[in-house]
């Protein structure tokens, strides 16, 4: 089939555009509807996170980590405190570990809900988005019940937690899980298997394994390409070793492995796995244990460096901390999974239509707060 080439037009998608998930500017070269080149321009949300961290004490970094990936603050806190604890060689007790895992998995569900809903919105399905937000709201209620905040928690501290679980939290979480499990099936029937949605996502924006690995893409995006890589399994931190769960990988259910549909469906399956972990963690949650037991009086890590990575909803979230023995980090570097996910967009989205580019962007589930930091 011959292709008619016309005049190329440069189109700026963003910084203010409904589908850019924040303030991202995509400069695309288009020939009619076909996009030939995509250049993402970052920095509209740059807040000097890393430089800030060099000027505040170790405790004070935690509220800043909240604000990086504002859709998954708990896991951001988690990664940071795990890194600092490893640097200071602190062991926290079992109850703290359990509560941290419960919070992280709830956060993973909440983050995936918003990501999936926003992806649905990108391809034009409005109703699933609001259904997702409705359920996410319940998780936020649980968080508010625990620490008083709904979005930016500052909940996990070095060596402990800011608050213990409230009375009735375990029952509320069980209630939520019982309520939520059928909702996933409803969501799958409403959107995931919808023929129009399948047409829009299957075989679109295929990310081959080699590309994903060479760009350093992690998290659900990597797993959708068929690589079984999950830090909770491959490099277990906290107490993930003691839980049984699967790592869902993309199998090309509707098209080929690593397409938008796979990236979408892996997240749906991950929510189910998170529910499994949550049920186990709630069942084995120790009744006793002081959550402030191991909080050090002064956080002054010994001289040295550490790089610790955890599995955030978006992938490998790494913190590199260099300590010079004072109470202020000498250097703090954050490895953002969304950044690598965005960097691959030109590779996988060039050559597709304009609508597909936005669908692919949605399927990568990026958060600009984390990319720009």
């Amino acid at each position, binding site marked *: 089939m011959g292709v008619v080439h016309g005049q190329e037009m440069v189109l700026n998608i963003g910084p203010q555009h409904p589908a850019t998930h924040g303030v991202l500017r995509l400069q695309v070269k288009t020939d009619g509807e076909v996009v030939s080149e995509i250049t993402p321009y970052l920095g509209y949300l740059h807040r000097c996170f890393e430089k800030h961290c060099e000027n*505040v004490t170790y*405790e*004070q*970094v*935690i*509220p*800043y980590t*909240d*604000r990086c990936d504002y859709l998954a603050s708990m896991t951001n806190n988690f990664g940071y405190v795990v890194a600092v604890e490893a640097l200071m060689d602190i062991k926290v007790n079992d109850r703290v570990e359990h509560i941290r895992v419960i919070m992280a998995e709830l956060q993973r569900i909440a983050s995936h809900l918003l990501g999936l809903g926003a992806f649905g919105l990108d391809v034009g399905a409005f*109703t699933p988005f609001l259904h997702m937000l*409705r359920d996410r*709201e319940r998780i936020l209620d649980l968080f*508010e*019940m*625990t*620490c*008083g*905040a709904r979005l*930016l928690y*500052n909940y996990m501290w070095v060596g402990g937690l*800011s*608050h*213990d*679980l*409230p*009375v009735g939290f375990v029952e509320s979480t069980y209630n939520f899980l019982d309520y939520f499990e059928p909702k996933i099936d*409803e969501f799958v*029937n*409403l*959107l995931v*298997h*919808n*023929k*129009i949605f*399948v047409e829009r996502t299957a075989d679109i924006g295929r990310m081959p394994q080699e590309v994903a690995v060479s760009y350093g893409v992690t998290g659900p995006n990597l797993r959708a390409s068929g690589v079984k890589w999950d830090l909770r399994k491959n490099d277990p931190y906290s107490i993930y070793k003691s839980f049984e769960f699967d790592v869902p990988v993309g199998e090309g259910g509707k098209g080929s492995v690593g397409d938008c549909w796979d990236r979408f469906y892996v997240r749906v399956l991950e929510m189910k796995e998170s529910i499994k972990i949550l049920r186990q963690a709630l069942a084995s949650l120790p009744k006793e244990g002081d959550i402030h037991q191991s909080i050090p009086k002064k956080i002054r890590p010994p001289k040295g460096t550490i790089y610790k990575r955890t599995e955030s909803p978006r992938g490998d979230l790494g913190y590199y901390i260099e300590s010079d023995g004072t109470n202020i980090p000498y250097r703090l570097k954050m490895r953002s999974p969304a950044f690598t996910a965005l960097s691959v967009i030109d590779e996988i989205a060039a050559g597709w239509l304009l609508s597909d580019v936005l669908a692919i962007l949605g399927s990568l589930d990026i958060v600009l707060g984390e990319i720009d930091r």
Partner: protein
Amino acid sequence: MKRYIIDIWAAATTILGGMGITLVHLFRAKNDNVTLQYPEERWPRPDRNIGFDHSNYNVIRSRLHVDMDDCIGCLKCERACPVDCIKIETEKVPNRGEDIKEIGHVGVTSNGSRKAMVVTRFDIDMTECCYCNLCTYPCPEECIFMTGGPNSDKHPIDYEFSEPNRNDLIYRFAKPGSREGMAKIISEQKAEV
């Protein structure tokens, strides 16, 4: 050809299936409704007296409040703040633990510690506050807290603290006139010496 028919069939069934789901939601609108008619209905008052001791701590995070009578001017909250939104200035009192009537200074806190400082300025800029709660933990007298905290009867939870003027969001907790009063007292002292 087979593929063609399967595709049409899949499109028809899945779309009708989806429409069935939305129809169920349409007719169950009354039960499933999650909207709160905000000005008329409010969030249920949080019932979660949790935290350090289970009897009287509440984790609500709304605006900050300071009980000035209990503040000893130790500056711990100022140092804990990651965004530097708390500004405190203090003056040494002539006699430790003694009330100074002119400026409304109370010498002894409710915990019984005798104050060595008069707080002449205690400003919290709520436009800068990031609601991290870090300032409330180090306080030795538990006098700075988010409303809804230990004294939640005194300070009802207030989610909508909007102000017409931006400067009104800088909360000044120091007793009015304390700075001038202290300056006067100090100058009198110097004169005596």
